[in-house]
């Protein structure tokens, strides 16, 4: 598998980008409480993925489901990739978002 300039393989980068997009969508969802939104923003930022506009269709999905989906993507990474401090921090923020009030 080829590596990119920053030493991360393309699959890992794609997974991080997908998880970050889901966290970003949850952070802008009106149904999420302010604390959850903050943790989602922190999770998306921690993953250091290039940001993009959030599709309006994401608002129709429950923010908890978006966070769970993002966590599932991160949880399915190889253990060594999950243990990367950025990913670990994003997962911790994701958990806190799920614990935060709606």
């Amino acid at each position, binding site marked *: 598998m080829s590596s990119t300039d920053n030493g991360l393989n393309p699959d890992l980068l794609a997974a991080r980008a997908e998880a970050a997009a889901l966290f970003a969508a949850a952070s802008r969802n009106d149904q999420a409480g302010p604390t959850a939104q903050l943790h989602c923003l922190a999770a998306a930022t921690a993953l250091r993925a290039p940001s993009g506009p959030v599709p309006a269709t994401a608002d129709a999905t429950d923010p908890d489901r978006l966070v769970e989906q993002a*966590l599932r993507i991160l*949880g*399915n990474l190889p253990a060594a990739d999950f243990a990367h401090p950025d990913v670990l921090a994003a997962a*911790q923020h994701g958990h806190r978002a*799920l*614990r935060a*009030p709606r």
Partner: protein
Amino acid sequence: MATSLGQLLDALADTARTTDDSAAARADAGTALGHLGRALTHLRRDGVSPFAGDRREQQVAALAAACTELGVRAPATESALTRLAAAAADTVGVLYDHTTVTSRWAVATAVAETVTPLAEVVAHRLPAGPATQWHTEVERQAALVQQTAALQPPTRADVAILDRPVPGPAVDASVDPARVVPDAIGVLLQATARANDPPSVTEVLAYTIAAQTLSSAAARLGSTDAPSAGQTTAADAWRAVRAALRPYDDGSRRFHQHTPSGVTAAGRLHAVLRSEPDPATWTAPLRASVTSAAQHLPTLATQLLYRTVRSWADNGSLIAYARDVPPREERVAAYLRGYQPGGLVRVDATDLQPVAGALHNARLLSLSVADQAADPGARATAGFPRRAWAANRALLDDPQTPVALSVAVQQAHQQLQARAQRSGPSRAR
């Protein structure tokens, strides 16, 4: 002063992140990791998965072992990190009766998250050798537990265990009401957590008085308007629980050398809140402690319903006069004997349905009053049980809850009306 596992773990993680890089701090963090290993061993032994020996259990066991091994190799010390971790590990043991498999998984996840900042403190200038190997293993296993948690995240209801108040040592009656309230609610939650050795009917009656007083205080705090006449409140729902319990007894005349701790706590909570009826005169800490304590009222109702009442029903430990329980064909003889010893029957789950229904109503109305009391100002105070509030909010946001709540209001009102109509000469006691 009451504390909670969540407060201890949060303080531990925050202290670890801000601690200086020194040999003493590294030793302190290493010893603290040993205590977290003890907490994880507790959790693993009690079960963190419905399937014995599955991935969750293996990973928690491996993390516990790694933390313990690293702790053993740390120079003996007892500073801030060690004291916090030791208190957290002890609290995990104290909370055993309150936990389920899923809530223990939530606790294990929170502990694994706390391991990471502690391991970072230890990491600096660690000499090569077994300690370094165990440190690497701690970091690896902590990440694995968190990875499994990412795939199987605990729910808000499970995470609420982190906010469960654990009472401190008993304090004199003269102390600040702001300290009495959280301690008392902690004692009540502890007294109702055990399914084996449940409290007696008399004890539960005392708990419902405390719950009624606390609900009433929280309602006054959450609203400036007095409830309109005829409007059923959470306090009324707790009164209805007491009314529903009236016919039952455990049939024993036990001599208590000392008043049970739960009854003492209920009495003190009632006394301090009755002595200061006007929330306008309350100090800010008292307002905060009433708001925080109210967040645990739904849990108190749940524990009374699913542990205490279920245990009474399963063990057949209560008796009542056949005339005072829902009539049944096989009890005609006992019914005809009236309020005489021959009229007593052993109570089962069907007989206890009115009590279960009243507790269900009290739980729903307590959810509502707890949420009203938790205004943004109250939620911003230190020590506010935000995870418990989040779990309450999640239940209130359930689409079925508004209907259930209006049914609960009606039923609580009807129960009290029925009780009032029946109040007259009944059994001889």
